[in-house]
């Protein structure tokens, strides 16, 4: 297990994000986007072989598919049908962990995928819609990946539209406790965070090499709980880098973070 010295920030984020799935056991890992999908793939190939993944279409796989076009003779390791209607049976059973990239994440961990600015009747910017975020957020653990950590994503105040439930006492449904809500890792281009601070406050877990806690706080629109000692995010190992390269043969990961910076920015 030799730590690499030459790796990109995208690869660092993939390895950090794969930690979200390491101890999950036999659940469906859904990583939307290249970095979350590679994170789930890496976890399935290393720390958690019991993980389940789909081909992002309609089949469950016993081995993750490499991303992008594959050779004519490639045979996916299909193990069952898993169409969209069946995904909801899985979601509502709780045996899933999704990693997604919303447009806004507020101090409660509530997220927004739907609309920005204006009024709800006439938003300034209409986006996707709530998608499956409401159901995901109340049914199973979720993590976030944010390729550009800034105060537009981690904004002051509450999300313009709350697509997913967070640790907001004012919105807590009757009969539920804040502990029922399970937001795990928030992996960004600056750091890894979680909601393990006092009263579910967002907390700095690790800093990417060359990034300071002050930078994280400056780029977050609300107070981040910063423990006395914050470790650096672990560098990828050579083994991890080679698995990532095999899972992403067309190097789509190079286009996920602006300018594809190196992992160590010190």
């Amino acid at each position, binding site marked *: 297990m030799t730590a690499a010295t030459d790796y990109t920030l995208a690869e660092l984020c993939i390895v950090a994000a794969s930690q979200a799935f390491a101890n999950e056991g036999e659940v469906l890992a859904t990583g939307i986007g290249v970095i979350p999908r590679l994170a789930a793939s890496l976890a399935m190939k290393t720390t958690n072989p019991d993980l389940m993944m789909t081909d992002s279409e309609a089949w469950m796989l016993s081995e993750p598919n490499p991303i992008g076009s594959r050779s004519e003779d490639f045979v996916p390791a299909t193990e069952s049908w898993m*169409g969209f209607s069946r995904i909801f049976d899985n979601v509502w059973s709780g045996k899933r962990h999704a990693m997604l990239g919303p447009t806004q994440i507020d101090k409660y961990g509530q997220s927004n995928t739907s609309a920005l600015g204006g009024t*709800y009747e006439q938003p300034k*910017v209409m986006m*996707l819609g709530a998608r499956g975020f409401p159901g995901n957020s109340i049914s199973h653990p979720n993590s976030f990946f944010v390729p550009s950590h800034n105060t537009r994503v981690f904004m002051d105040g509450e999300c313009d*539209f*709350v697509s997913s439930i967070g640790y907001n006492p004012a919105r807590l449904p009757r009969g539920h406790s804040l502990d029922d809500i399970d937001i795990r890792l928030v992996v960004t281009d600056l750091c890894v965070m979680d909601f393990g601070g006092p009263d579910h406050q967002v907390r700095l877990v690790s800093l990417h090499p060359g990034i300071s806690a002050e930078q994280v706080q400056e780029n977050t629109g609300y107070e981040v709980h910063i423990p006395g000692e914050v470790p650096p995010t672990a560098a990828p190992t050579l083994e991890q880098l080679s698995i990532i390269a095999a899972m992403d043969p067309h190097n789509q990961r190079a286009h996920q973070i602006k300018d594809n910076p190196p992992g160590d920015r010190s």
Partner: protein
Amino acid sequence: MDKQMSAAQVVAQLRDGMTIGIGGWGPRRKPMALVREILRSELRDLTIVSYGGADVGMLCAAGKVKKVVFAFVSLDFIPLEPYFRQARQSAAIEVMEIDEGMMLLGLRAAAWGVPFIPTEVGLGTDIITKNPAIKVIDSPYDDKEWVAMPALPLDASLIHVDRADKRGVCQIAGPDHYMDDWFARAADKTYVSCDELVSTDYFHDPAQARMVHWERSATTGVVPIPGGAHPSSCSPLYGFDVPHFKAYVASAREEAGFAGYCEQFLGASEEEYQQNVGGLEAIRAIELPTY
């Protein structure tokens, strides 16, 4: 029983103000030829229930829509649907924004004839605060509150399938039938366009019959339209038309807008449309997407 109809005959059955469900998912297996026939009609004030793609965008752009019931409207590889955005950002439409799974529950409730299905989904989010029509209720069995997802009954559903026989046995041969079985069951009338009309004995092979997801009694009309899902996909027959969708998205930034898109492509009939997009052979040659 022979349920064959033309697209024009389907649209003649629809009325202003109806609630219409549209099958498929984003850019995948949408009954676009039937949608185009609505674009050519005088219909208006429709409520559209859809896992939305260009079906929703085009109907909004053409002024056919009063309200959209949606969890997303997206072309997937192009995340934002340009004409749906325009409609929202100009307050041209009403919306009922729900979770993807809530839509499934609403269709199931309608299909089963129950007024609602209880769920946790939506609690703590703006799905509840922005939809006063969706009630949060007490449970007779525990001390929690639950979302009572209301039934989403449809006056009509429009669906595209790979194959059907004239009696309305419909086969979806692609890997996912999405929620189309529930759209068929939730609707008063279900109109299905198909890429291939087959004889009934086609389904005597159990491997073919296994890909039939609802009974023919849930199918009202069958409209044979080869290539009728274009520019969306109809796996495994053809993929979605990436250059066409890019041209469609680009049209939203041009002065002529959707009228310009229609001028270039829509035509007075599906035959004209297919000529304008390069013909059926070109549609059938579009590669399937790789995920």
